[in-house]
Structure formats: structure tokens, C-alpha cells
């Protein structure tokens, strides 16, 4: 199978922007871990007390927390959970009961202690341990094996495994505003917010950050990933902090937010997936989780509040999209999505992928020609304005504006939670817009989109679920008809690219038949049942309509449907 050639990356290597690991903010944090965690704990407690001002409310909150935690332990236990979890919460429950027999003063004191204990426990659990030597080790191991795999797989000869003909760069294309990102990381603090489609994202983005010469970022990764032991090892050493989406109690959420907030204020570049969880439908995230995003806004306000001069360190939000031909988990994700659609339920965080599956996937990934591209967007300030290379905020007509003034009332920087919530919402919607603009359309996305929409058009009376239940054998599109529509939609994508509304991979261009063939060969390439392929008679057919729906969704939201049929 041919490699889908992208434009060669001009930038073959990037020098690190900071010389030694000891200069990295993340290293500084981890060196002063104890003080840092205590600061997070104190500030989170302050915040919780603000939200639950009376003793009665606080007590209720603690009781709810214990109840939920015990429930979680009973129902949904994970390998990464601390061994003493059950014991710890049983003890806290006991302590809470005993409060009743104490004098008001004693009880208040005890409550305070319990809160401190719980918050500190959470903070420790969230915190990653960044260890320079294991970071270096992990980095080298990943690089070494990736390159070996790649070379061994590409050239089908024993011994090729020791060659260095291909590097990861041939496999993973980094496009977009790389230089700007490097500059911004020197000028201020970067908060990178990528789209989230696959468990592979975390590792991939870690590699990207290293490969463009940035110091390690701290990043919020789902705790479920730490169940997979190789993941766990690498992520721990790459500076990841853990986000446990099973825990939805107030003390936990406040601790988590404060952790991110304080780290950003201290200048640690951060990364989190603002979609919260992997996109189940395969669509680009539309609704972002505001919790972690709000920490960027709050951290910026605090920096302005504490520095009166013009030297306030700025926070830059950098949207990133990850573009795949193939998402390992697609069949499960779309099934989840279809099951809960229309019902207001949380997804149960499960993971069906152990280390073995993961290695198998990696092997497949390297042996077959399925490339990944990472699009880096322009930097934004926390209000969602574009910034220039110097980090200045710009308004729509390119004038420099002073972002501090967004936080000012009557000539002073003020704290206004409600205002900042609104700002966070505005930032989120800007990030979503940017995702759509920097998203790179692959041939595989487009074939999936076109085929699915064409079929859907043939059954106007069926709703989505009815349509998805059709037997796959009944669905067939004559190749020429397909080609015609593909051409029309591709033209529209070119037009939108001119307007800056989307990007596309270079392999999408050129001869129509070649572009379609590339698309068909790559869409969901490793699934047992292929979402789209050509039958012997040349017609387009599918083996799995649900999965096709998943890949099709990647291009939903561009209003391309009207060019079908």
C-alpha cells in the first residue's frame, strides 16, 4: 500500500526552546511538589467554603461526597484506585457520624480537618509526578520503538528494523502554526486544547509537544488510561495529571480546577481535552466542558490582579485538531452514542482496551499506510481573540487591544465570577469555531460523508435509527454516481478552504479516481468490517453502516449536506 504523501514538512527538526529540563515549569512544580499541593489544597478549600458558606451546607456536601465515593467503590472499581480507598471512606463516614456527639466548636474544627484531608487526598491523586530521568527514558523508548516499528514494517525485509529510512515525521504530520506556538510558549503560558477522538490522542500529543521542541506540558488525562499499565508509565513520566470522570462531587471538582488554575498561574504549559471525553459520535466537539476551560480565564484574571504593571504574563489558548483515517475505538464509540442518543445519561466510563490490544493496534498502525495529521491553530487570548507573534491580543480589524481591560470595572481589575463564566462560554464557542477551521479534511472523511449522505437521501421516510437498521447488503451506489457527487462536494471544500473555513490534506487533491481510491483504502482501515469499499462490479458498498456513520460525522457541521444528490 502506498504512503499517502503529504507536502514534506519543511521543518525537519525543532530545537528545544528551553535548554535544560531544570528550566521547565513542570519540573519546577514537581520539585516543589509538597508546597504546590498544599497551596492547591488551601485555595480549593477556600473556594469550597465560598460555595458552601454555612456549616450545615458543608456538612451536607461532605456526606454526599462520602455517599458517592462509597457508591463508586461498590459499583465501578478500577485497577488504579488506591488500595485503601474503601477503608479511607469508611473512616471518614464514621468521623462524620461522630460529629453529632461533639460540641459545636469541636465539630467545626473536625469538619475543617476532614475537608482538608479529603481535598489533599484528591490533590495528591490528581497530581502527576514529573521525573526528569524517567521522562527522558520514556521519551527515548517511545521514539526508539516507534521508529523501529515503522522501518521494519514499511520495508518488508528482515533487518530493515534496524534502518532509519522512515521517521515518525513521515507518519505524523504536524501542520499549522508551529512557529507561532513556539514563540508563544516563550512569551507566556500555553494552554493547548485538542479535539479528542481516540485514546491514542494523549500519547500522540505528548510526542508532538516534544517533537516541536516545547518543554513537557502538564496535562489532564482520563484516569481510565492509567488502567493500561504501559500508558500509565509513560503518562506519569510525561507530566500528566489525572482526571477521574467518575468523581463528580464538589470537593473533587474544585480541587481539580484549582490544580489546573494554580499550575497555569505558575507558568506551567497545560493541555486538556475540553470536550471532556472522546467524541462518541465522531463529530468535532460542539459542546465543550467549561470547568477546566474556566481555569484559564480565572488564572489570567489572577495574574492581572496580582501584577499591576504591563509585565503580566499572558495565557494563550491554542486549539489543535487531530485528524485520523482510522479510530481504533470507533465501533464501540458509535454504539455508545446510538444507545444513549436522546436520553439524558452519562456515558459509563469503561475501557475495553488493555495493553495487548494497544500494542496490536500500534503494530497495525505502523504496518499499514494510515497517516495522522495534527493541525495547530493560531493562538488565542483567554477571550478568544487572535494574538500576534508577540502575543498581543488583536481585535477583528487587527488592532492591538489590552486584554487586561476585559477584567476591569471602573479602572480596576475586579473579580466577577458571573462575568468570567460568560467569558468562558464565549471562549468555548471560539475554540469550537477554530476547530472547524483548522480541521483537515482527509479523502477518507469525504468518501464516508458522501456515501452516507447519498444513502440517507434514498430513504427520506426513515429516521436515523430506522436507516441504520437497513441490511448492509441492500446498499449500493454506482461508482459514477458516487464520483459525480464526490467531485461536487470536494469542490465545495476547496471553496471553503479559500474562505478559511476548513483545511484539507494535500492528498485530497488531484485526480478524482485516485483521491477516491485513497479515501476508500484508508477509511476505517483496520476494522474487521470495513465501513466503505468497492464491490467486484465497481460499485460502492458498506459492511458496517454504524461505523460509516461515525466517520461521516467528521464532516457534519459544515453545511455540506445540501451538495448531495
Amino acid at each position, binding site marked *: 500500500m502506498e504512503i499517502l504523501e503529504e507536502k514534506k514538512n519543511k521543518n525537519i527538526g525543532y530545537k528545544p526552546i528551553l535548554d535544560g529540563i531544570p528550566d521547565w515549569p513542570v519540573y519546577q512544580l514537581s520539585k516543589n511538589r509538597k508546597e504546590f499541593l498544599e497551596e492547591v489544597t488551601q485555595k480549593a478549600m477556600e473556594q469550597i467554603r465560598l460555595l458552601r458558606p454555612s456549616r450545615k451546607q458543608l456538612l451536607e456536601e461532605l456526606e454526599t461526597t462520602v455517599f458517592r465515593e462509597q457508591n463508586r467503590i461498590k459499583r465501578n472499581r478500577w485497577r488504579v484506585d488506591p488500595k485503601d480507598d474503601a477503608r479511607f471512606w469508611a473512616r471518614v463516614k464514621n468521623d462524620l457520624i461522630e460529629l453529632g456527639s461533639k460540641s459545636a466548636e469541636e465539630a467545626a474544627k473536625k469538619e475543617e480537618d476532614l475537608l482538608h484531608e479529603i481535598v489533599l487526598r484528591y490533590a495528591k491523586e490528581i497530581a502527576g509526578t514529573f521525573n526528569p530521568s524517567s521522562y527522558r527514558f520514556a521519551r527515548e523508548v517511545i521514539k526508539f520503538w516507534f521508529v523501529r516499528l515503522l522501518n521494519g514494517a514499511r520495508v518488508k525485509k528482515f533487518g530493515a528494523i534496524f534502518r532509519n529510512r522512515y521517521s515518525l515525521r513521515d507518519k505524523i504530520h504536524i501542520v499549522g502554526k508551529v512557529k507561532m506556538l513556539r514563540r508563544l510558549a516563550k512569551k507566556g503560558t500555553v494552554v493547548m486544547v485538542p479535539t479528542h477522538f481516540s485514546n491514542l490522542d494523549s500519547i500522540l500529543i505528548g510526542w508532538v509537544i516534544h517533537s516541536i521542541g516545547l518543554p513537557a506540558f502538564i496535562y489532564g488525562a482520563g484516569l481510565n488510561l492509567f488502567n493500561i499499565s504501559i500508558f500509565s508509565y509513560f503518562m506519569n513520566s510525561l507530566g500528566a495529571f489525572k482526571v477521574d470522570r467518575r468523581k463528580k462531587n464538589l470537593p473533587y471538582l474544585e480541587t481539580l480546577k484549582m490544580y489546573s488554575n494554580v499550575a497555569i498561574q505558575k507558568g506551567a504549559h497545560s493541555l486538556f481535552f475540553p470536550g471532556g471525553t472522546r467524541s462518541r459520535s465522531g463529530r468535532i466537539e460542539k459542546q465543550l466542558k467549561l470547568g477546566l476551560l474556566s481555569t484559564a480565564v480565572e488564572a489570567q484574571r489572577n495574574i492581572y490582579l496580582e501584577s499591576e504593571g504591563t509585565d503580566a504574563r499572558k495565557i494563550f489558548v491554542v486549539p489543535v485538531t487531530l485528524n485520523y483515517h482510522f479510530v481504533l475505538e470507533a465501533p464501540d464509540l458509535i454504539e455508545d452514542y446510538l444507545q444513549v442518543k436522546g436520553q439524558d445519561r452519562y456515558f459509563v466510563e469503561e475501557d475495553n482496551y488493555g495493553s495487548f490490544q494497544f500494542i496490536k493496534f500500534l503494530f497495525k498502525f505502523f504496518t499499514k499506510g494510515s497517516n495522522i495529521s495534527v493541525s495547530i491553530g493560531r493562538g488565542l487570548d483567554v*477571550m478568544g481573540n487572535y494574538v500576534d507573534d508577540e502575543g498581543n491580543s488583536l481585535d*477583528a480589524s487587527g488592532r492591538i487591544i489590552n486584554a487586561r*481591560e*476585559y477584567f*476591569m*470595572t*471602573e479602572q480596576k481589575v475586579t473579580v*466577577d465570577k458571573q462575568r468570567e463564566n460568560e467569558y468562558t462560554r464565549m471562549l468555548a464557542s471560539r475554540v469550537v469555531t477554530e476547530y472547524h477551521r483548522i480541521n483537515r479534511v482527509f479523502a477518507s472523511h469525504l468518501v464516508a460523508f458522501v456515501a452516507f449522505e447519498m444513502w440517507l437521501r434514498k430513504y427520506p421516510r426513515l429516521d436515523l435509527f430506522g436507516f441504520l437498521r437497513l441490511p448492509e447488503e441492500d446498499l449500493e451506489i454506482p461508482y459514477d454516481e458516487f464520483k459525480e457527487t464526490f467531485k461536487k462536494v470536494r469542490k465545495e471544500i476547496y471553496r471553503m478552504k479559500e474562505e478559511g473555513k476548513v483545511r484539507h490534506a494535500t492528498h485530497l487533491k488531484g485526480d478524482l479516481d485516485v483521491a477516491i481510491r485513497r479515501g476508500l483504502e484508508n477509511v476505517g482501515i483496520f476494522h474487521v468490517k470495513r465501513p466503505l469499499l468497492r464491490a467486484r462490479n465497481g460499485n460502492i458498498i458498506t459492511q458496517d453502516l454504524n461505523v460509516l456513520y461515525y466517520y461521516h460525522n467528521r464532516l457534519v457541521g459544515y453545511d455540506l449536506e445540501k451538495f448531495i444528490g
Partner: protein
Amino acid sequence: MTSKSSSDKPVGVIGAGNFGSVIANILANNRKVLLYARDEKVVSTILKTRKNRGHEMHPNVTPTDDLESLARQCDVIFPIVPSAHFRAMMKKLSPYLHPYHILIHGTKGFDLQLPKGETIETVKTLSREQVKTMSEVILEESVVVRVGCLAGPNLSRELAQRQPGATVVASPFQEVIQTGKRLLRNERFQVYENPDLVGVELAGVLKNIIAIASGGLSGLGYGENAKGLLISRGAVEMVYLGRVLGGNTKAFLGVAGIGDLVATCNSPMSRNYTVGYRLAKGETLQQIMDDMQEVAEGINTVRITKKCAEYYKARPLITDTLYKVLFEGMTVQDAVDYLMRYPLNVDIDFV
């Protein structure tokens, strides 16, 4: 929130029309006010006579024709200019605005942006891409994000006579609402809050359609039953259109919706009402527009709303019929007959 230092800073009002002058006077009870007029003659007249459009101007009001100095001196600005000029005004003002500014507008109309060479008659479809509320114009044209609007039964003349009245200040920002309240409130003027900015704007804009229809009924000499019918069906149509255009139901039931609707539909003082009234008396739209001092926003609103509703496949009965009256030569009498024969029987289907 209130600090002494701030009270020295004047509040800005842009637009010295009827409503602008009245709002400037209300604000002047609490603060110094800078009132911007495009025309320097208006400025000199106010300076000389202390009068504008028949309103005695409060001593705290200083007229100016310098937008830059107004933006520099005022943190809070109330733009109150007709919707047709709103975007142009924002483009002029924008270079002087900062992210710390708060803008609360009082304009009840739509902004329309068409591709070059197109007019509203020639353009094929009209969607919310081209039709914007004033707050959306402010956000598009400037760096200001703390935006709000004023809406409600605010007939200029009654306000000027200090009759009891109320307004809604709508904004997603509590800060903006509280600032607006603090500046506007007095013992004769009640200020309500609403977080649904676009909903409140839409209510204020859409009620102008019904106001024209109401004038038409009076012009034909019909009484209170007919008006009751119109106002209740009109309210339903406003909710329906409001949802199509991106507001939610609640805003329409409040002061800016029903409150404003009842006031304008009963008021010969209202410009939109007057348009309908004179149409019913047999005048043509051109004749009416020629001798009106200020624009009746409702005329343009009908035109834009009708076309925009088509795009969203909505069928607003009153608006469509009124469109025929205004632009296609249907008489008011025929319009009423048509509506009365129309088979519709569900009273309320949105609660």
C-alpha cells in the same frame, strides 16, 4: 459596586432623537450625561435653548458631536440610533472603544447586511447570517463584550412627562444589568432584569409589526374586541417568530414582550401605530414616510421578518398579510377580511 470615584465619570448617550433625548434626561437624574448628535446644529441648538425635539433637556446633559471624546470620558454608553444607521455608527465609534466599555442599546430594529449589488427585493434568501440584532452588531464591530439592551413599554412622551413606566435591561452579564439599573432607576421608572439578551431584543423588534396592524384596525374604526384579538394572536406570532430567530419564549411574556406590545398597540403616539392608522385611512406608504420626522422601525421589520421566515420555513400569518398591505397594495380592509376567514383554531400551542 458603587464607588465614589466612578460617579464623576459621565454616561454617554449616542443619538439625540426622541428616545435618546428622553433616556439622556432619565440618566441625568443620577449622573452627568454626554449626549452625542451627528448634526452640529442640534448640538448648538441644545446648548442655546436647552431644548431638543420638544424635550426640555436636563442641566446635567451636555451635547457633543465628538464621538472620540465621548468614548474617552464615558465607561458606560447607551447607543440609541435607528437600526438602519446603527452599524455605520458602530464603525465610527469602534476605534475609540475598549474592552472595559459597557454598551446598552435602546434600538428596536434589525440590521441587514446584503452582498454587494443586492437589495432586499432581489436577494434570494435571507437568514440569520445576514439579519442581526443590535447587540450582535456591537459584538461584530467592536471589542466590547459587555453588551446589553433596553426594552419595554417606553413611549417617549409619557416618559418625558414622568408618568410611571418600566424597562427591562437584558444582558448575559449581571454586571451590565446592575449598572443599567443603577443608572436608570428612579421613583417613576422601574427596571427589570433579564439574562436573555437576544430574546428581549427580538421581542422589542417584533412587536413593531403588531403595532402597525393595531393602528390599521383603529384606522378602520374597529373597537376593543378586534384589538384584543390582534394583541393575543400577535403575541403568539411573536413567540413563534422569536423561536425561529433564536430567542426563547420567556422574554416574550415579560415587560419587553407583552408589556411593550400592549402599550404600543394602544398608543396613537407610536410611530408604527401611526403608519397602520394612516394606511387604513387610505394614504400610501410613500406619502406616510415622506412626512414622518423619524423612522418607523416596523416597516423594515416586516420586510426583513417576512423574508427571513421564508428561509426557516415558518409561516407568520399576520406578518405575511401586513407585508401585502405595505408593499403589494392590498388594502387594510381586505387584509382584515382575509385574516378573519383564515381557518385557524388552536389558541395556544407553545406553553
